[in-house]
Every structure is written in C-alpha cells, then in structure tokens.
C-alpha cells in the first residue's frame, strides 16, 4: 500500500509539475530558426528531487489508510428468529404479509428478548437509481420501525440503517432475485 500511495503521490506531484509551467517550454515556431529547438533547454528542468519532499511527507501523513475499518457483516453475524419483510418495487408500504411478520417480530422482541436492541436494515433491488435507493431503503426501515412501535416495541430499542441496493440478498438479475432484495432485515445489536 505504501508503494501504491507513494506512486500515486509521485504521479500527482510530477503531474502537477508537468502541467505547470516548470517543465513546459514554449518552442518558438520555426519557420527559419530550427535552432530554437536544437539548443538545449534554456531553463533547466526542475530536478525530480523537488517532488520528493511532498511524497515523503505524505507517507508519514497517511494515518487514515493505515487503519482500515473492518466492517462486520452484521446480517450474518447475528442470526435471530426475527424474520425479514419484503416490499413492492419503488414502494415502502407494508403489505398484510409484512404486517403479520412484524407482529411476530414484535412479540419476539417484547417477550423473548425484552432486553435487546435491534437494527433495521433497509434494502432495495438493483433496478432503481442507487442514489435514490439509499433513501428508499431508509423509508422501508422506518415504515417497519413505526409499525413495531405501534405494537409496543420501545422506539429507543430500534436503530435504522439503509444500504440501498448495496447488499443484495440474491445477486441475480431476475424478478425472483429482485423480490428477495426489496426487504428489511432485523439485526440484534445488543
């Protein structure tokens, strides 16, 4: 990674120098005077060393990339008896099936696991715009949360996150896959 960073920085800094005036010389149009070109460059090109302080400095200043945040796969890490609910395309309305599922989930949260907190993950299929889907996924999670709250689950126990279309359950490109991916997942977060 260090090499890559160094390479990148070197590229950028050299690129800047190249793009700037330092290394670029206008050569006079040579109708009669081809000598304008054959003479050695009047201004010495800046030594490459000039770019190195930047590169060296950069390596020491890249704390961010050296500490990658390992994202935990929340969905897989915390298996629960909470069931997913599903949605129609470009919709966040709860179907009767989804309401029935949410009732069972509420009962589980109220009676079996009254101490736990749960994160609701909103997801979308790949067909919409990914930018718009981020918001749609959140609307789905909120619809599920609001219904759980009406069933008595304390709002403080519920957090929300939208993954839009970034985490499909089924990577396929069929109606069946899309239907599986338009969902809210329920993840126990303690």
């Amino acid at each position: 990674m260090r090499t890559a960073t160094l390479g990148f920085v070197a590229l950028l800094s050299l690129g800047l120098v190249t793009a700037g005036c330092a290394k670029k010389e206008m050569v006079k149009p040579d109708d009669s005077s081809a000598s304008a070109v054959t003479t050695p460059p009047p201004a010495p090109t800046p030594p490459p060393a000039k770019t190195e302080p930047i590169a060296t400095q950069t390596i020491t200043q890249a704390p961010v990339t050296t500490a990658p945040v390992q994202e935990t796969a929340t969905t897989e890490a915390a298996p629960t008896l909470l069931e997913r609910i599903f949605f129609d395309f470009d919709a966040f309305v709860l179907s009767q099936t989804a309401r029935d599922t949410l009732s069972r989930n509420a009962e589980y949260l109220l009676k079996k696991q009254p101490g736990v907190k749960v994160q609701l993950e909103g997801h979308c299929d790949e067909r919409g715009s990914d930018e718009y889907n981020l918001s749609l996924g959140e609307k789905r999670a909120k619809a599920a949360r609001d219904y759980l709250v009406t069933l008595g689950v304390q709002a403080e126990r519920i957090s929300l996150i939208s993954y839009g279309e970034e985490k499909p359950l089924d990577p396929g490109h069929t109606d069946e896959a899309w239907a599986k991916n338009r969902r809210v997942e329920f993840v126990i977060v303690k």
Partner: protein
Amino acid sequence: MKRSSCIFIALALMLIPSLLRSQEGYREVTASGTHQLTLAIDVPRRLGGNDSAQVIRDTAEVLQFDMTLAGPFTVAAPPAAATASGIRTGEFDFAPWRSAGVDLLVKSGYTVSGDNVTVEFRLYNVNQARELLAKRYSGRQSDLRRMAHTFSDDIMENLTGQRSPFTGKIAFVSNRTGNKELFLMDYDGHNVQQLTKNRSINLNPDFSPTGREIIFTSYRQKNPDLYRRELFTGAEARVSSQKGINATGSWSPDGKRIALTLSKDGNSEIYTISRDGRDTQRLTNNSAIDVSPAWSPDGRQIAFVSDRLGKPQVFIMNADGSGVRRLTTSGSYNVSPRWSPKGDRIVYCRQEGGFQIYAINPDGSNDTRLTTSGSNEHPRWAPDGRFITFSSTRDGGESVYVMRADGSGQTRISEGKGKNSHPTWSPRW
C-alpha cells in the same frame, strides 16, 4: 482533392484560431459541408539517446485516443510515403501528407536518457506547410502519457480556443477488491490507483472545484456518512455524520458549500453545509424523497431528484430552496441530474427497463437521449463541457465510459474487472 476545397480548408485553418478566441464558447473546428478535418499522427521519432519502443507506442497511442475522442477530426494513419523523416519544418516533405488528404499533422520526437524522457511535439497545417504549435516536455518515463495528453490539450486549445480535459483524472467506485472502494485513473483508463482501503462501502465521489479534494459517502463507521479526502495526502475528515443518510454530496462551484442529502429530520431532504460540515441549511421540506443535488455552474440553482409527485423526477430550485419547478416531464423515473459547466444542458438518467442517459435544456426543451445499449448511469461532465463520463453494463459487468456531449464516440475506458460505476471527471489540475 479538388483545389478549391484545399484552398477553403487552408483558409479555415488560418482563420479558426482567431475566430474562436474572439468569442466565448465552445465552437468546434469543422470544415464546411460534409468534409471533416483529417488529422494524422506520425510515428514518434528518436531525436537522441536510446531507442524506446515503449515511448513510441505510448506517445502514439495517447495522441490517437485523445484526437479520436476529440471530435473535430478524422484521425488518419500516416501514408507509407511519409515515413522515416524528421519532425521539424524543412526536415520532411509535406507533399505525401497533402496528397493523402491530411489537413493537420502531429509530429513528435523523443530523447530518452536513463529514466528521463524529453518529448517534442509539433502540430502542422499541412496545406499551408505551416507550424501551428511546438512544445517540449520532459520528465520521467512514467510521466510520458501525461506529456502526450498535455499536448492533446494544447492542440485542442490551439484549434478551438478551449483546452480539452485529457490530462484530467476520473474518480470512480469499483468492487474489484471485493468491497466498493474509490479509485482514480487517467481519463483514458490508464494509471489506476486505489484511493480508499476501508473495506466498507464507498459511494458518490465528487471533486472539489480545485481538484485537490474529493467528497464521498462511506459506511466505514457503520453509517452512510460524508467524508472529505485530500487527494495529495490521503487525509480524510468526516464532514457530516448526522443520524441517517449523509449522501450524494455535491461541491458548490465556488468550493465553499456542499449540497447533500440528509435524513436527520425524518426523511431524505436536500441541505447545504460548509466544507467543514457546519452551518447546515435546509432547502427542501416535504415527506417525499429528495436526493442528488446538482449545482448550476453559477451556483444560483440546484437540480435535484424528488418523488414528491409519486415517482422520481428531476426538479430545479434556487440555491436557497425557493422557486421549485419540475424539469423532466417525460418518462416515469428520472434521476441523477448534472448541470453542464456551461449551464446550457443537464444530463440525467431515465429508467426504461435499464437506464439511459438523456440531456435536456434547463428550461425543459430539447430533451435528447444519448445512449441506447445496456443500462447507462451516473453521467458526469468533463470540465470543458464537451465530454461526459458514465457507467454502462453494455459489455457485461459494469464499466466506465466516455462520450462526447452529443452522445457520439462512446468508448469504454475501465477494465472489465468487477463493477465500476460513479465516474466523475476531475477539474483541471
């Protein structure tokens, strides 16, 4: 070629630079009628030092790619009769080029010394046997492609009065490592560099107007937050981490504000914040989804996507949130608007099965489809407004493409590895 047309082209070539410089705008160099200027790129010659097949290949390849995409020219191969000659006036004969119908000739020569290379470029008006432009660049061999791109930009500036964006970079999102990370590459797909390595999900890169920073949304701290990254140092700052979504950030043209989507107040709305995440101002206020803000080049208006009428459509409002009006009226699902640098067009995507890219005038007229094959998303303008980068599934997978603003010249630039999306063209560095 007929003598009369020769004379005309010669006249046109003589007049065009001054004509174009005298007026603002983007006129492209074209000859009258159906004749398009023919530009030929001669084989790079060794002027001194060592032979280098790679310098020859890379220099010719870059010029060929740039000039082909550029638009005003038909790029021709050198005629057989014209090989093995010098690059300066008097060192070669214009006649074989002229008789091959070449109007503009690019010659180059190189001197390799160790890791250093010097390349001299010359642009000639063949019909007048006149040199239009001569430049010499030197640097390391790894800078060679950039030198050639720079001369391409010089050519376009000389002939059209406006530099092309061929020395620019394209930032994009790729899952080639298994996670969606940000990458940077030359606009022609070379020199790919991985920017983020946080192994979460990284989305929606947007360059600051200076090109030195990039904002993007990342899940690296378990929420879709907005980050600002300095490209030269790699330093990152989290600039917006409100509860819920902090996404689709878009830098204002003066670099002082960032428009973005936040859902902290209940559902997705458009806000602006300072570049450090302070001074939050809310622009939209309704129960619908409002996302994807895009500034007009004068910073006075913002195009955005809203489903307030049922399905996502593109709207325009003043930068203070007032004066909302609907832009797109055809199609039932229109998203991802981006204003051209000149302000005269807005590109966006329409869902028609997959997505297709359209361009429309800000007053809603002249709504034109630019793509046809595959699903095409995430259109972004090049800084000169003459080119657009976008992602497409037409070759399987998802790759980054470039095209001219009228939809012609569509060319894949990213490799086929993984899904490559959300390209965004850097400002000039």
